[in-house]
């Protein structure tokens, strides 16, 4: 009887664990659909760096084409541009590694009105594993009492939060389009990012916004 109870408790515990584990797994999103994606489970080794899991709705990855994603990080408590963009970059790297990719390319979402020059490819110039300065998401935001507005890093305009109190920003979204790639990275691509290197750099720096 005791043995049966023990097995029963064991099975229940296993199911509970399995349930929480499945919930944390990244859910592959079908093309054109949205899914809330949690970070890949970290290695079960004590004291290794790990990014805290995001609450539902903070991070979404929408499939775009065969290996592309539209990534969005959303929150209500604005800290800094750097914090949010680094978290988004880390999620892009993490997603790439989860998809068994080695690197990803960042696609700039530009309009005709943009004035900031496009980074040029120069095979003779220094090669990089990543250039964080070129990882420039576009933003949407809401300030108290106003509607959603957008801001593009390619517009030439100052960052929207400059001169605004952080507590007046009630909602924000930073979004990026990336394409997951396999094999040897094209290190002459100024918008190429080696996923492992980006993850290594950012893992100790980022946490999801709230």
């Amino acid at each position, binding site marked *: 009887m005791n043995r049966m109870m023990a097995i029963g408790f064991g099975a229940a515990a296993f199911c509970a664990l399995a349930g929480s584990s499945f919930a944390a797994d990244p859910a592959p999103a079908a093309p054109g659909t949205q899914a809330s994606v949690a970070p890949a489970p970290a290695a079960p080794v004590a004291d290794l760096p790990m990014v805290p899991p995001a609450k539902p709705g903070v991070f979404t990855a929408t499939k775009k084409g065969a290996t592309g994603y539209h990534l969005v990080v959303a929150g209500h408590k604005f800290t800094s541009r750097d914090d949010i963009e680094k978290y988004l970059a880390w999620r892009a790297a993490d997603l790439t590694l989860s998809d068994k990719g080695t690197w990803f390319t960042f696609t700039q979402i530009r309009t005709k009105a943009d004035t900031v020059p496009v980074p040029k490819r120069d095979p003779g110039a220094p090669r990089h594993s990543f250039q964080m300065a070129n990882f420039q998401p576009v933003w949407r935001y809401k300030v108290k009492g106003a509607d959603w507005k957008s801001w593009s890093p390619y517009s030439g305009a100052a960052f929207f939060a400059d001169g605004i109190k952080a507590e007046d920003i009630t909602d924000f979204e930073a979004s990026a389009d990336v394409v997951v790639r396999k094999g040897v990275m094209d290190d002459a691509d100024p918008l190429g990012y080696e996923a492992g290197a980006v993850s290594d*750099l950012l893992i100790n720096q980022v946490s999801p916004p709230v």
Partner: protein
Amino acid sequence: MILQKRLMVCASALGLMAGTAMPATAAPWVRGYVVGQYEYAFRYGGRADFTRGAEIEPGVDCPHGASTHFANDVNTKIAVQRQKFRSQQEIDWISRPPGLDQVRAPVLTRFHIWNRAVAYRGYKRGIETYVNPWAAEDPGQPQVTSRIGDGFNLDGKVKAADFVSPDGEKGVDNNLYRAWGCDAPWRGNGNATLDLRANDKMQDGLYTMVIRVSGNKDPMNDDNATLEIGYSPDKLVKDARGGIAVDYSYRILSTSQYTKLKAKIKNGVVETEQVEHLHSPRIAWFYDQTGDTNFSKGKVRLNMSPDGLSATGLLAGYRDWRELYTENTFAQDGGQQGIREHEDHVSLYYALRRNADGMYNPKTGKNDGISSVYRLKLASAYVVDPQDPKMEVPKLALDEERMQAFLAIKANTIKGAETRVPQPVPPGTTEAAVGSFEHDIADLPSKDFFIKTLDRPHYANEDKDGIPPWMRRRRGTVAPTPPAATPAKPQNQVQADTPTKVAAAEKQ
């Protein structure tokens, strides 16, 4: 008389024919060599007398020339302004320290300030960069764009990005050249500064490398030959012109730096088998870097001159790229070498990492190795076995402390890269100009700002000026610690019994 003459001619002709048709020496033979030049097999494509703007010797290998990291205050400013934790004053003052015109040694003073500053470029203060390069942004590294490179097809595949050898062999794997071939101290037309330094130190006795080739047929054509490569405890002998003296005797030790390979020789070209582990001495210019290359899937090709007096060759395989990084970075300290040589080890770290192309690690899903080719120039020598077959590589007692510090910082660097937990600088090194900075900027009016602002590692038992014990010993302000044991000094004493006689006969 005429008949006699014809008979003589006929006999001579027969003799000559027999000589060419028969193997020249169908008997055991040995050829020995000592390595006189040993360097990365990088092909220089620039013009030594040409610069263009800020580019140094642009060429077919490196279209914008060699690396120029920390070459001037503008480049150093670019490097330190990437850290968001620095104030604008800090950035400006590091790149152009105020009051330099009032000090006795302005270049040296600036050098020490830059050394300490660039040693801390992590994502936050307090993370030493050379131990934790992964925690700093990639500054970028010019890479080789040429398609021609020396080496072998190590993986048996012909890939789109592979090099083509000067002889037209396709599929050549030499990603170390791609990654580091534009790095200033390794790029040059025989004048690359670290090439010169490493060869100079080797020739002055830091270590000696020997090769012994043997077989049973003709030394120039033998399909069942043997090639041995290893460390010799005997100091390399120079001739009166500073070249490598030929035909001196060197012992070859069967130690961790020794490998015996099967080889085939065709027209004097020795081609060895490819072995899982090829051990040989490392390129080094300080004792702390010396040790085993441990090439994976390694092989050797030698081109022996018919007279047996010289040879050239290539030694190749995959090397653990983290070992290459640490060997190049911590001979002294990362900042010191980087600023002096215009190289940035953070850039070199990332270049190695993304060009790693072998030694796949199924646990991590990453390549631990990078295809690497070393170039050899050899002079004939008598390579003999030591009297004690178990003789070990001698240790330099006075440099053992530095060797231990090197091993400790190497271990911390690899641990940090694997765990992504920033690691400290272990005791015994000069990282961040510890032990010299405070003293050498003493007469700079703005010294207090730099001492207060710039990070550095701290250790137990520092003196009031922050000098740790090992630097006080090196500076001679405290008595040196006596070495634990005094190893026997290696001498040019050899047991020249058996192997030498065949080699000597062969060279006549």
